[in-house]
């Protein structure tokens, strides 16, 4: 398979996660202090690097068919979760993901928390906030990059796409010093949900022994079909929600004020 769809999917998925991590890091750094925030980030990156160092080589030892079955199942389940949330958001049943609002909540909590030094860290709250944020979002980045890369036998491209996404978001974040609320995150999450589900279904079925009609080209049909179904579900839910005389449901992305 061409490595472009792999790279693009991993890049967009990881960029979404990096935007979320950036919001938390900025809230900790700008509200509390940067030193402890950087220490928290560094500790999380060490844990993530250890995870990659253990998981990456271990997965290459698993036979490809078994790997695709397990990874496909995991990705299909993980993708379904993303897609379900994205459809509920797009149809107005769930609040849109709003980095500005999340940042405001994190800042309020960071301002309210007391200051405490622990284990050589000056501000324990900033440390743990940055550590948890980077670790949790980073685990999703690692999960997506390793599963996509190993299943496609192209871990290098997946890792490069993930690293590029994190780097781009970090550079933009340093430049603007504010949460990236203008990034069309809800639309990106919708697209990523479609891709994760499609690749999961493709690899899972292949791992179960299926031969796809057209081999890898089946993905060119699978992705649009899943996308059409997702858009169809949004339309159905919107129609059910709006009903006669009800207010219109919100659009996919908020219009910047």
């Amino acid at each position, binding site marked *: 398979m061409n490595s472009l769809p792999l790279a693009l999917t991993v890049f967009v998925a990881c960029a979404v996660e990096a935007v979320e991590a950036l919001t938390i890091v900025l809230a900790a750094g700008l509200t509390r202090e940067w030193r402890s925030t950087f220490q928290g980030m560094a500790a999380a990156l060490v844990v993530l690097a250890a995870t990659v160092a253990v998981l990456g080589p271990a997965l290459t030892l698993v036979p490809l068919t078994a790997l695709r079955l397990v990874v496909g199942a995991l990705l299909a389940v993980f993708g379904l979760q993303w897609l379900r949330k994205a459809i509920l958001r797009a149809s107005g049943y769930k609040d849109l993901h709003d980095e500005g609002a999340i940042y405001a909540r994190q800042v309020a909590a960071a301002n309210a928390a007391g200051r405490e030094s622990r284990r050589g860290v000056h501000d324990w709250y900033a440390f743990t906030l940055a550590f948890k944020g980077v670790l949790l979002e980073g685990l999703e980045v690692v999960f997506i990059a390793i599963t996509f890369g190993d299943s496609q036998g192209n871990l290098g491209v997946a890792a490069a796409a993930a690293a590029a996404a994190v780097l781009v978001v970090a550079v933009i974040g340093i430049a603007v010093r504010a949460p990236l609320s203008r990034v069309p995150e809800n639309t990106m999450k919708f697209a990523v949900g479609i891709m994760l589900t499609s690749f999961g279904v493709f690899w*899972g*079925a292949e791992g179960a022994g*299926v031969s796809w009609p057209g081999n890898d080209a089946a993905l060119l049909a699978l992705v649009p*079909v899943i996308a059409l179904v997702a858009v169809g*579900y949004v339309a159905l839910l919107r129609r059910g*929600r709006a009903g006669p005389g009800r207010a219109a449901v919100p659009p996919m992305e908020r219009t910047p004020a």
Partner: protein
Amino acid sequence: MIRWLRSFGAFWYDFVIGDDWRGAAVVAVALALTALLVHVASVNAWWLLPTAVIGALGWSLRRATAGKS
């Protein structure tokens, strides 16, 4: 130790499966059926998993929105 294991398991459950375990169950059953059809009945059941996933998504959405419109 048990508390740590429990929270570790809860984290991974929430991370992969999330709010609705039924989607994961449908994927697992569909994959098992696909493997059975392919290896036992020699049926190239490529259509089974996509159909099951589309159905599971609709079912999950219906459950999530029931009574909310």
